[in-house]
């Protein structure tokens, strides 16, 4: 990540709701349909990529989100991971997967912005402009959903009860951030 400069520079607190950007963290996109891929990821990260739709797997260091049958997103739980460690992880994945034609490894750290939403009103806020049915999602820790919030593409990860991580593309992040804060005032 070069010259990290987020468009969002504040933390907002409302009744039963806290919204904060969590950056900088490493995010890596993985694509593969090869059998050996899962084993390789398991060896490198000590997590197996989830095969079941809309789920995730994780340990204390990383989360691995299902995006489609041949696509996953890794993100780190640690926003103090050094740039050197991030580079080492990316290189290790690249050398073990991309270079051996086992799949594609792409560093998307600067492509996605992660916003953490925490509090009892999280789903009330999202439901104001999201067509997704959160009934199953909110009861299942680790659920993943790719959907739209206020017409903006997002990835949602149910990290803990009423605590979810929302990924939005950098260019849309400020717009969504403003919408989240406007709407949070009215719930």
């Amino acid at each position, binding site marked *: 990540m070069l010259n990290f400069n987020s468009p969002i520079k504040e933390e907002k607190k409302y009744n039963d709701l806290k919204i904060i950007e969590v950056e900088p963290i490493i995010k890596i996109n993985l694509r593969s349909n090869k059998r050996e891929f899962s084993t390789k990821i398991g060896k490198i990260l000590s997590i197996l990529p989830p095969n079941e*739709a*809309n789920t995730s797997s994780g340990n204390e260091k990383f989360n691995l989100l299902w*995006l*489609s*049958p041949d*696509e996953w997103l890794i993100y780190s739980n640690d926003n103090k991971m050094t740039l050197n460690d991030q580079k080492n992880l990316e290189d290790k994945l690249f050398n073990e997967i991309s270079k051996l034609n086992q799949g594609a490894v792409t560093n998307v750290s600067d492509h996605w912005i992660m916003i953490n939403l925490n509090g009892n009103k999280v789903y009330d806020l999202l439901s104001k402009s999201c*067509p*997704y*049915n959160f009934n199953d999602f909110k009861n299942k820790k680790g659920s993943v959903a*790719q*959907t*739209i919030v206020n017409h903006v*593409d997002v990835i949602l990860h149910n990290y803990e009860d009423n605590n979810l991580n929302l990924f939005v593309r950098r260019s849309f992040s400020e717009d969504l951030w403003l919408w989240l804060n406007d709407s949070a005032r009215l719930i």
Partner: protein
Amino acid sequence: MFLINCPYCGERDQSEFSCGGEAHIERPKQPTELSDDQWAEYLFMRKNVKGIQFERWNHIHGCRKWFNVARDTSNDKIHAVYKMGERPPIK
């Protein structure tokens, strides 16, 4: 508005999807041997029936996968959803 059962992600709102037009249109094996009319027929002419129509859809705001849908155009009722390369489960 209606719900579509994505074969990969499950049931989602129609606003997450994009329609890619009529399905099961085969590309001619020898395009250079076709007349202009036959080529135009392949490129532009679509059935647009009232009733069950086979369409390609893309879960563009989700898993970004293509699949086929058998949809009744008169009431938007979806009769079948099946993956690319599969034959329609209904006639």
